[in-house]
């Protein structure tokens, strides 16, 4: 078996901009084991979000290879990438990215709807369980606008969890929260990691990164320190 769960080799990403394009990633090589809790740190523009998007299959690299569980992601079609995002990866964003017009339940339900594998009668139970796990069992019917930032982020975590993914990609999940709430969110993430999920966290806050086992520092599209 392949020892590396996530293996990036010489990954580059160039955004089309002007004549030559803007290189966001300049040859990143990185291995992440199953069950790791890893933080990617760096100033804005260092390419940390781009790296996370590539790991999360939201974006594809310009060159280099990305092996996920031994599978070459670069060879996958758009449809297969979508399937991987849906089944194996959960996303948590800085700005929560919830659907504003839908209730907490419906937001959490979204990945289940697109995976099409869960029976209709089980959906309600699974989404309720996911929301209970993040401590929101009393706010199932609330809309995002009726919830605090911390609560919204917990809905987002529940949504990331609902399809039981192996990897959770969190892009500055605490960026919009006060420090008290930030620590609550990080405790939830730490708990998820203890249950065996691989978590990749992007942050610029040192105390948030302190929750993780391994910190990667980036600058100008390259890794400067592990």
């Amino acid at each position: 078996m392949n020892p590396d769960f996530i293996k990036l080799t010489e990954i580059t990403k160039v955004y089309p901009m002007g004549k030559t394009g803007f290189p966001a990633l300049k040859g990143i090589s990185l291995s992440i084991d199953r069950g790791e809790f890893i933080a990617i740190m760096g100033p804005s523009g260092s390419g940390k979000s781009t790296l996370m998007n590539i790991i999360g299959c939201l974006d594809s690299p310009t060159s280099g290879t990305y092996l996920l569980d031994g599978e070459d992601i670069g060879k996958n079609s758009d449809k297969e990438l979508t399937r991987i995002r849906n089944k194996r990866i959960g996303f948590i964003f800085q700005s929560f990215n919830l659907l504003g017009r839908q209730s907490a339940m419906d937001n959490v339900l979204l990945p289940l709807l697109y995976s099409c594998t869960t029976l209709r009668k089980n959906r309600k139970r699974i989404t309720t369980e996911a929301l209970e796990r993040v401590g929101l069992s009393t706010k199932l019917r609330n809309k995002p606008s009726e919830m605090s930032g911390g609560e919204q982020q917990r809905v987002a975590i529940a949504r990331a969890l609902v399809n039981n993914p192996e990897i959770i990609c969190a892009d500055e999940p605490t960026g919009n929260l006060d420090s008290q709430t930030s620590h609550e969110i990080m405790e939830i993430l730490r708990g998820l990691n203890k249950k065996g999920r691989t978590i990749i966290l992007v942050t610029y806050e040192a105390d948030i990164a302190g929750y993780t086992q391994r910190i990667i520092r980036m600058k100008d599209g390259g890794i400067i320190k592990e």
Partner: protein
Amino acid sequence: MLGMVIGVFAITTVLSISKGGKELILSEFLTAGTNIVMAFNAQMETRTDKFAYLTEDQVMTMKEIIPQVDDLSPVHFMQIPLKVKGKMKQITVFGVPENFFRVRGIKASSGRMFTKEEVNRYEKVCVVGKELFYDLFGKTKKLGQEIKVEGTYFRVIGVMGHKMEFGPINVNTAIGIPSSCAMRLLGSRDIYAVQFLAKEGVSIPLLKKRIKEHLRQIFGGRDDFDVHSVDELLSMLDKVMGIISMVLGSIAGISILVGGIGIMNIMLVSVRERTREIGIRKACGATKGNILLQFLIESLILCSIGGGMGILASVGLVLIISIMFKTAFFISSLAIILGFGFSCLVGIFFGVYPAYIAAKLNPVEALRYE
């Protein structure tokens, strides 16, 4: 959206009315019989004083000369002033032999038509058109009243059933008296119009041609008499209906096109406003197909609402028309299906482009979109 409403409204209404109207007219013609030809003095409608006329002999020999004629009936005319609903009106009185009612296909809606004996005996009886009867006596339908024509009282013995207006007499608003009485009142035996009934299976245009030729011969080469048949009215009506349908149909088409473009714009704005939502959905595992379908369905719903409103408006209008004209116009199911189907088609057609734009969005960029 409004364009959609107007477009579907127009389509459904036009289809319903033209179909309903056509059926109405057709059913009327079927009862009237399409094998009726009428020849009447060409100057009758222009009302000049010098009339060409036929004699009784000339008319009767036509039956033998023209083999396509099953039966014919001379018609005498006069106009009399009559007080109808408190107002003086010019009413047409026609004098005919008893066979006129068979030739013209008129049946009594109440009472009876006069008989050969009554004609021969100069009996002072009359039959009245349904509309005029109601106007004169109300809907009590009591026969036996008397009507004064040129100083002579005629007893009403029957009401003529409704018939389509054709030729110079509208039987619905006219009074019919025995030809014998009419000739006596007029003081002349001149015949200004003849009603023909064609034999079964005879070509009407051929019969018309024969009648015309014969009349031309009588009048020394001049076309003093016009010859008309019911079926030519029908084809004219058909033509008019076709033109109306075409004009309204093209208006409908244009407004649906404009409405469709409007819907496309709404959808494009919606895609732009919801870029972030599309990003979220994609991050959660929505495929291109999922997004495409979502926006197509939304555009379809928009168009269906527009179409539904159009159909409702059209149903309302047709109902109002049928009440106003006291005829049974109906919304044809074909019109509804066509109108609704068309609006759905437009919804899909104009929804594809915005939905495609939405499906094509890059998830990373969509999520970053503010």
